[in-house]
């Protein structure tokens, strides 16, 4: 495996370098605007600044899990069963779980400052916890023993079922009585009640986190490709060694 990694091209390309550099610039703006330029909220005060990380990370986690389901469906539907779809699905789920963890941690900190509690089993938090646990399960399924085709098939089925939880999580604050506030931007009335600079910084955060997500997924799926090549090369190396042994015994 190390031989393959040593002789392979790096996982970065010109495109990923451009995406990475743009992500750094956008995130730098989000940090400056979120911490220094945006005002305090009339009720929450300084703790509103957590929103600039919490909300984008939640949206990107949803995006990542939807992308995982789409890539999984593509793998199942396509005649060739290209393993690229499976690697994209796996990479996106891993990054999505990371963003979901950030959502839970930042939400917990905000909850302590606003609600007075780090955690409450209200509809939004309960369904989010369930979504998080489901995708950890998805990652565990990907690591079960079997061929890459078995891995792809099992995980694709799990991904297509797990994605159905996202509408439940998002609309939990509408369907049930929740301690968590309703959506500000994606609310049914479309009337966004947020200070302009706060809203702009929030959208900048979404753009920045999206770029980080794309950058991480591209790199991760390439490292997954290298691991798959290394695993296949193990078999090829064994055949070559056996042939060499056979030739020597002639």
């Amino acid at each position: 495996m190390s031989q393959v990694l040593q002789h392979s091209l790096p996982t970065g390309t010109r495109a990923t370098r451009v995406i990475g550099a743009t992500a750094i610039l956008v995130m730098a703006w989000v940090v400056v605007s979120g911490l220094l330029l945006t005002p305090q909220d009339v009720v929450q005060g300084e703790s509103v600044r957590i929103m600039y990380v919490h909300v984008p990370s939640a949206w990107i986690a949803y995006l990542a899990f939807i992308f995982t389901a789409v890539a999984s469906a593509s793998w199942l539907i396509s005649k060739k069963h290209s393993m690229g779809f499976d690697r994209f699905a796996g990479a996106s789920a891993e990054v999505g779980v990371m963003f979901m963890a950030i959502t839970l941690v930042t939400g917990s900190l905000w909850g302590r400052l606003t609600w007075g509690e780090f955690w409450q089993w209200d509809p939004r938090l309960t369904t989010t916890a369930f979504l998080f646990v489901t995708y950890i399960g998805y990652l565990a399924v990907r690591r079960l023993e079997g061929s890459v085709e078995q891995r792809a098939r099992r995980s694709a089925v799990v991904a297509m079922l797990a994605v159905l939880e996202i509408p439940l999580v998002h609309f939990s604050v509408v369907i049930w009585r929740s301690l968590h506030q309703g959506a500000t931007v994606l609310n049914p009335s479309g009337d966004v009640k947020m200070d302009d600079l706060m809203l702009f910084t929030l959208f900048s955060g979404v753009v920045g986190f999206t770029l980080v997500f794309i950058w991480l997924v591209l790199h991760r799926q390439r490292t997954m490709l290298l691991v798959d090549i290394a695993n296949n090369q193990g078999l090829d190396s064994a055949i070559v060694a056996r042939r060499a042994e056979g030739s020597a015994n002639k």
Partner: protein
Amino acid sequence: MDLTPRPSEPAKKPRKWLPIILLSLVGVGGVVIVTQFLRSAIDYYCNVDEIGIRSGCEEATRLRVQGTVEENSLQKIGGKTSFVMTFNNKSINVVYSGDPGGVFQECISVVAHGRMIDDTFESNRIEVKHSNEYAEKNADRIESSGSAACSQAQG
């Protein structure tokens, strides 16, 4: 070239237990969340006007009650906080054993945990329920009305 199988048994790969253990833990965690927490989460609170009326909001049981802290009703005496909580033109007196702290204030929505005792809701936990509105803090407006939430409610 001799490609006949070797006589010695190939070494067995050890079973990968970590994913199996993790998957088991995930299964247990999922079942616990659904059975222990999802049911109570769905009916997280009763509104003030539903006490004694709606199923699950019986006065004799421990309740989570949601309403808005009425303006000019907040008093802090002897380590206790009392206020009037209103929803849909129905009000109850709430006594909380302590200082809620944080962003608790008049005109803000709260969920109080406790019991109804002699027409007063005795609470030992208060959670502030933030709205989905975000506005710039304006020192002048707050000073004139006394509460940021009342200022926001008045527009």
